[in-house]
């Protein structure tokens, strides 16, 4: 079962380790300059950016007269204008996430908390969005580390969504709120309503102009078909049950289907330059943030 308190969900050790992890975006929102988490807007600022020759129509107030005295040429002095970096952490709160030990939902919330902390620490605006927003509360984009404790409390109290649905629908519903463009990190097991649901979901995020990163988390038990025998297998989300004779042949088929699905997700992300991490819940969250994200391109 998923945890409901801050103390249960986020240990002190976990929070201490977050301090040592830095978050970075793969690309700037606008402009070709690749600075850390920094969009380039030429405007009023205290930080010099560059000089540009004065052309007609430019505001003469920005002419650098000292430079004119030195070079005998009118140039405009441009400054860097900093822009907030939006990090949208979408975590799956469907019933299928309430599985395993620890529950995948707990694991996802820990990762979400970790990402949020790193974002807040770097003055980014961080939003925490449950995929089925109807069942939980959205943490609207905000910045400032002082809000982190509040964020944790809300995260800990997030319930699981009682109803089933398609991943694509949930994402479409969120995109309809016109979120600012930024980095969208999807935390989910990616068990969609069908085999193409997860792909369609990522497509929608891409088409919305979001930078997408995916952390797919599964429980180790889900990789295996379980003990042999006859069972009525019940989908914990939909309640649909099917009779299954789990013999060795069925077990082999299950493993093959599972592997093919994982590979299809991986192949899609690689083709579309989506950072993908496929992990299981045995892997420590802090290590996942520190090391696995580095491999996946989330952190420089």
């Amino acid at each position, binding site marked *: 079962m998923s945890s409901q308190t801050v103390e249960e969900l986020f240990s002190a050790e976990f929070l201490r380790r977050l301090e040592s992890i830095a978050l970075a975006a793969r690309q700037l929102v606008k402009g070709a300059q690749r600075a850390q988490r920094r969009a380039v807007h030429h405007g009023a600022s205290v930080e010099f950016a560059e000089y540009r020759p004065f052309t007609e129509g430019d505001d003469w107030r920005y002419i650098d007269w000292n430079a004119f005295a030195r070079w005998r040429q009118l140039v405009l002095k441009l400054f860097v204008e900093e822009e907030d970096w939006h990090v949208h952490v979408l975590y799956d709160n469907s019933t299928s996430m309430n599985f395993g030990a620890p529950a995948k939902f707990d694991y996802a919330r820990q990762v979400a908390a970790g990402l949020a902390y790193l974002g807040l620490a770097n003055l980014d605006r961080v939003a925490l969005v449950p995929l089925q927003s109807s069942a939980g509360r959205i943490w609207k984009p905000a910045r400032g580390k002082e809000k982190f404790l509040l964020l944790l409390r809300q995260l800990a109290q997030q319930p699981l969504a009682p109803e089933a649905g398609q991943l694509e629908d949930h994402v479409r519903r969120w995109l309809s709120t016109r979120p600012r463009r930024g980095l969208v990190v999807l935390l989910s097991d990616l*068990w969609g309503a069908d085999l193409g649901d997860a792909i369609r979901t990522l497509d929608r995020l891409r088409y919305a102009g979001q930078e997408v990163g995916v952390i797919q988390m599964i*429980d180790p038990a889900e990789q295996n078909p379980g003990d042999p*025998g006859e069972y009525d*297998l019940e989908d914990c989300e939909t309640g649909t*049950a*099917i009779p*299954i004779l789990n013999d060795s042949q069925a077990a082999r088929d*299950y493993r093959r289907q599972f592997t093919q699905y994982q590979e299809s997700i991986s192949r899609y992300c690689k083709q579309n330059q989506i950072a993908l991490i496929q992990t299981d819940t045995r892997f420590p969250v802090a290590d996942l943030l520190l090391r696995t994200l580095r491999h996946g391109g989330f952190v420089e």
Partner: protein
Amino acid sequence: MTFLWPAALGLLALAIPIIAFYLVKSRIPRRQVTTLLFWNQVKPRLIQQPFWRRLRRWLSLALQLLFLLLLVLALTQPQPFWRSAQPERVVYVISASASMRAKDVSPDRWQQARTLIEQRISTMRYFDESAVILASDPARILSGWTTSQRTLMNALEGAETSPGVDDARPALALAENLAASREGGRVVFVSDGVLPYPLEKAPAIAATGKETAPLKKAPILDCVRVGGDEAVNSGITLFSARRSTVAPGEFQIAVRVESNSKEPTEVEFELTRDGRLMDVQKIKLEPGKPWEKSWKDQGNAAVQFTAKLSGMQRDDLVEDNIAAANVNGLYKISVLLVSPKNSFLEALLASLDLVDWKRIEPGHDTPAALAAADLVIYSKCLPLESTRPTGGKPRAVVLMAPVGQGFWGKSGDALDAPLISEWQRESVPLRYVSLDQVRLNHATSYTPAPGAAVLAESFAHPLIFGDWEQTAAPQWLVLGFDLEQSDFVLRTAFPVLLGNVIQSLRPEQQSAFSAVLPGSIGTRLANTLPPEQSGDPAATASKGAAYSLASLASHPAWWWLVLAGLFWLLLEWRLYSRRITE
């Protein structure tokens, strides 16, 4: 079909909980999964399962019930359908010969025979009757007719083999009489086939004992043989120790050792006298060649000699590896001569070995003096008591030329120079005595007491007579002539006669007692049963144990049913187990 324990059928009620548990167990468990994405891809193949696989759950239940049925049947101990519904009445005769201890089968023939009988007893139904007879010498009824398996088993527990070879015929005759007392009774003789006499077909038995009654059919005799035909044995076939007839103080010991092995066999032979080692020999026994040796030793006391074999590589019968022979001590005869001085008699008595004698004057033969003597010789006088001595002492009395009347008869007229016309050469006193040259100057005519035998006579006049039978008390003999009035004392007949008289008084001596099994090595373990009674030798040799005629099954039916039940259990487990579903 009949059952030894029909009450066990009640255990079939266990089928009810089995079915109940099975139905509970057969409910398909529900398992929650996070997604059916992948199972939905596998499902089409599962729907196309063969028909029998969908039925395998019911097949599994059927197998469990079948197993229960087999188990219950095993407990009821059903008897084969060919076994008669009539009561079976069997007299088991088990051979107790020493050869039954042969270890050519494991553990030995005796145990194998007992096991065979115990198996058969264990399959007795409640209305079957059996008896057990041990074919020892004499035959012993271990248990009379009984339906109690425990009684029969206990009776067998107390049975032991004998040290020698026993004649089984008295036991078989006893068994046949016992079997004849029951309707349909029969005899099963369990032995290794080593019989000193061939088995004979039992005669018909009179049903009622009346001469006019029809003869009853003799009971069926089944011979069941145990043991093999390849027994290897090395043993002592002769061991004797006896005193020399020439010099009684000297022993002669002889031994013969044989082996029936086809290969030369090395053994160690050890001879002891009263526990003290006399000789040790390393012997190499060649096939078919016995090893023989004799020893001499001296001594007057009783002695026990023991021969022992050891060191054989293989020896299936250990009972003939040791033999003992006992030799009794020498016995001195006490002779009391009641006579005036008689040089001939005194010289003769002094010359005899193992004779302790003394002479007293006539009239001094007091009862005390007489009681100390084995033999009293009266010469020219009569006993003080005219009546026959009683009390066992003296054991014998010889009267020479008695005059008068007594228990021996009475004297009559004198005979002048009588000729000995006839004498009994086969009688003990006159054995090897020749009287044809003896000349008598004078003799006396006698009238012997009733019951006396005339051993020598002169034309119907008894000259030597008496009662020298062993049973007489005392033995007595009358010489009807005066030794000094004849040349009898000058002839060899005189010492021979007196020697015969004295030697015949010696107690019967078992000069040697041997514990050696009789017969040669080859016959000690050899089957003498006719082929139609001893089974197939080839089959028995291959098994290492000779089993019998078809009447005794090696395993009861319930044993096979349990085996089949276990097989079904394994099969059911294989099919039903959820761990192995294919």
